[in-house]
């Protein structure tokens, strides 16, 4: 059971209040009319699936209903940080995975 800190409510709440929405920081193509099939495919379907640190988008569905991001280890399930949409993560995935 995750206990997740919602950066908007500023409280730790249990996993059941939240909904995982997949990989974080997916940017919709800026010029969608001129994307190739490969660019659309990559945007829609291809995801990072790391064994280790992962940045994910979660929603506090049974709380404030706002989206925020989590940096989490997919093996130990440890949550390293949560941060609001628009903010930058403090944990650098490259540094952390080598350390």
């Amino acid at each position, binding site marked *: *059971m995750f206990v997740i800190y919602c950066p908007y409510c500023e409280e730790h709440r249990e996993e059941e209040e939240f909904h995982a929405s997949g990989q974080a920081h997916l940017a919709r193509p800026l010029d969608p009319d001129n994307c190739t099939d490969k660019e659309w495919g990559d945007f829609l*379907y291809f995801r990072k699936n790391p064994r280790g640190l992962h940045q994910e988008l979660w929603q506090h569905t049974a709380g404030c209903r706002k989206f925020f991001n989590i940096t989490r280890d997919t093996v130990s399930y440890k949550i390293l940080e949560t941060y609001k949409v628009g903010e930058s993560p403090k944990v650098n995935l490259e540094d952390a995975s080598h350390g």
Partner: protein
Amino acid sequence: MIKNALQHQENWQRMWRNPKPKAHYDFIVVGGGGHGLATAYYLAKVHNQSSVAVIEKGWLGGGNTGRNTTIVRSNYLWDEAAHLYEHAMKLWEGLSQDLNYNVMFSQRGVMNLGHNLQDMRDIERRVNANRLNGIDGEVLDAQQCKEIVPIMDCSGSTRYPVLGASWQPRAGVARHDAVAWGYARGADQLGVDIIQQCEVTDILIEDGAAVGVDTRQHGQIKAGRIGCVAAGNSGVLAGMAGFELPIESHPLQAFVSEPIKPILDTVVMSNAVHGYMSQSDKGDLVIGAGIDGYVGYGQRGSYPVIEHTVHAIMELFPIVSRVRMNRQWGGIVDTTPDACPILSATPVENLFFNCGWGTGGFKATPGSGHVFADLLAKGKPNKLAEAFTMFRFYDGALIDEHGAAGVAH
């Protein structure tokens, strides 16, 4: 057997060799689960290949092959998927004979319940589609469900009443470990080298073509063609080869109860309330749950999912409310956006992937191995495999089995 009993069961012959890897093989299969071993077996048997190795980082069948709920069925909605799973079903029907190894395939039927009008319309559509594809299927009403499974609450007074079901009589269960062991023994007898406890750490690529693998225990092993059959770890292998797959790995969990007297002689699945149950030959109730919504490689599941599944099972089967659970575990399933597998060439030449079976790979084991062996041997997909290329996620020809085929998740 008497002789072995007197010798404390210590001198049974090995079912397969434990060879040292050679420097080069024509084919390397990465992953020694059911699908990988079946691939090697059919490469040797159907395609007469003698230079084949299976490389497994742990022990045979120690991943999802030993962690699933052993259900076998082929009642998929779309033609491509239906043909593939029915191909597997036909191989299941002769598998114990073919391998000369009892995989305990028991065609006890699978029931997929409907709980509302839309469920029932979808079930009718799917059963009709199945029958057009030559796959057996029937639509049952609540009374017929009750006749087949008397312990199920079909009274209509539950929160999600049972209105009916789809019923595939040829479906059933098989003994999961025996499938891996049977294929391993069969492959070994045909000259396949099964190399256990050997972890692939890198895929060697020269000029855009795969030429071998690097391993932690045995160094480099060269190969003509490489087939990766690594389920939840496929993404890690693809990363070694420098590309991404349209796959996310999620924990899927199951649990078994203490053994009890026979109460259920078929398999009952419900997508709407999200639980499924069968009873093993030992008497344990085998209960399957849903996947966790996030990427995870820890082989365990979350508590909310257990609670959710137990709610569903108790509402359907009030009789089991005081049965105690013995074990709970998780497997890492490789899910694709359209809930259909990937049997495909990749951007790297001579490197092929068989993955993305998601929550329902066990049922496909013989078909998956048979079709993937064909792909590896010939280098191009046959009619059954061609729709399952990984490049369908670029051209848009998805085979959307999500929710369509009794895919529970």
